[in-house]
């Protein structure tokens, strides 16, 4: 591990650190560029009516995306209720009972599930729910989103729980706790931060997806009415407005994208604050 010449080692050390920072810099350039685009293009559209009103007709100024905000919140909340508990429990199982056959199979197919295009998941949800009930609905959309969220939550939970050092588990067992109690009361809280990251990533992903909602939640230009009817969403609005011929609608697409970013940022901060451990913001 230790090359012979000390100054060679120092040089290599410095070089690799420079490379890493360079990687961060290169990664940040496009990402900052996109964020700037969203900010610059979207901020001009934001005003109070943008957040509180329904969309105006074409050619009329004003109007907003309030129903899309409402719809996205409802969709990701419902999708989380379906997908997050299942995902976390499955992730815990995959990590704690790693040696079982079922765990290997589930882990393998979870990885395969992440590689399905969201449009295929949407088609699946369409076939299974929409065609069966003959109606586009919030439930179909939330189901499609939860299938997209599931593998992300499972994978990240599994890795987070796996990384909890073994001596903690051993300590729990040494103290006479049954295995399940060690797992749920000690190991999982220790992995809390990683689990939260995974959940937030999956929520962020779900909030931004368009293709699975196209044929399930459909979209609407009115308020949410019922779980079995279509509903608006920010991602659908961004899609529809961005492909329209009208420059003012296209500007609204950027505004909606900005609102989506802000929503995810707020959610992320709140969730992290709430699930912080005893040592402040660090879990």
């Amino acid at each position, binding site marked *: 591990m230790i090359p012979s010449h000390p100054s060679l080692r120092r040089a290599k050390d410095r070089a690799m650190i420079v490379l890493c920072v360079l990687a961060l810099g290169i990664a940040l350039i496009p990402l900052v560029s996109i964020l700037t685009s969203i900010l610059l293009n979207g901020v001009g559209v934001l005003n109070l009516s943008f957040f509180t009103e329904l969309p105006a007709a074409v050619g009329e100024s004003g109007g907003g995306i309030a129903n899309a905000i409402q719809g996205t919140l409802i969709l990701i909340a419902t999708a989380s209720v379906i997908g997050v508990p*299942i995902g976390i429990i499955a992730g815990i199982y995959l990590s*704690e009972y790693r040696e079982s056959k079922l765990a290997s199979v589930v882990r393998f197919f979870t990885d395969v599930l992440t590689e399905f*295009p969201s449009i295929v998941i949407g088609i699946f949800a369409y076939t299974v729910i929409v065609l069966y009930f003959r109606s586009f609905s919030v439930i179909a959309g939330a189901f499609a989103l939860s299938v997209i969220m599931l593998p992300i939550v499972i994978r990240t939970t599994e890795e987070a729980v796996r990384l909890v050092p073994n001596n*903690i588990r051993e300590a729990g067992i040494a103290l*006479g706790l049954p295995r*399940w109690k060690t797992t749920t009361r000690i190991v999982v809280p220790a992995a809390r*931060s990683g689990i939260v990251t995974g959940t937030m990533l999956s929520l962020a992903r779900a909030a931004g997806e368009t293709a699975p909602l196209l044929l399930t939640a459909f979209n609407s230009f009115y308020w949410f009415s019922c779980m079995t009817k279509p509903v608006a969403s920010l991602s659908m609005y961004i899609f529809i407005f961005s492909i329209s011929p009208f420059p003012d609608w296209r500007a609204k697409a*950027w505004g909606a994208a900005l609102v989506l970013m802000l929503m995810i940022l707020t959610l992320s901060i709140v969730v992290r604050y709430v699930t912080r451990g005893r040592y402040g913001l*660090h879990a």
Partner: protein
Amino acid sequence: MQAISKRNNDARLTSAQPVSFKPLAILSHGQRLTADRAFKLVAGGISSIVLVILVAIVFELYQQSRLSIDAFGIEFIWGTVWDPAISEVFGALPVIYGTLVTSVLALLFGVPLSLGTAIVLSELAPQSLRSPASFVVELLAAIPSVIYGLWGIFTLAPALRDYAYPAVQSALGFLPLFQGPISGLGVLTGGIILAIMIIPTVSAVSRDVLAAVPDTQREAAFALGASRWQAAKTVLSYGRSGIIGATILGLGRAVGETMAITMVIGNRFDIFTSLFEPGYTMAAIIANEFTEATFDLYLSALIEVGLILFIVATTVNVVARLIVWRSMKMVRGAVLE
């Protein structure tokens, strides 16, 4: 973000107060075993939901592709004609090829950048920067792919076409990979935009993985006289499986991405030889043509592309697992789980 408490991971138990025994002392050994078994059963049952969903999806895909499978058979996989208008012949080779190439490019560019970012965020950056930097990275995971696509058409592609690609072509133009006319829209741009899209996910998860590595590993490395980079390598090695997990998540996004890639890849149904040429991917062709598939065989062919995507994804995962398994056997230095 997890710095302080994770660093005190091992110290946590020593500073904890004694655990209360009261309810547990009452349970007999047999009862505790049953509770354990019940937990394992319930958790296992819930995990199987993933299998149920996957089987259901594949079953649906198969059912709906029957028409196309019956019409074209195995030749669908190496067919190169996609003609919904006149001959109604479909084949998938160009899109399989396009998906594989763009995914490889995405991982090639995206994973090193993500790892570098993760290392900086978890090992090298000062404490105060880590939290906000992590928030920003997670935020970027929420950007809808439509926005990536718009940015790709109006910002990325022109910039690459005007500055980066001519330079690449003059340097590496002797390779057939980099020949031909440059329009900014093509396979290489597609790979680059996919790489950018997977950076938030891969770096966020990798950063968490690296931060969760116990400090004992770092301390042991430093105690042995390692430089910062060498200590970082040790940490990387310890968190190897987590990083692979992060890469798989990134690969998933890359393979399944539809909107952004279709806006910059040129959507040309052909086997390309140069990375500057336009190409096509399986996810893009399904997304582009699904809602407009005007007759049943057309629809069935598109669904069959989805089925093939599943098969390709499974194969890639099997191969990846074999590679990982071989590399896991060569353990150096750090104690692995």
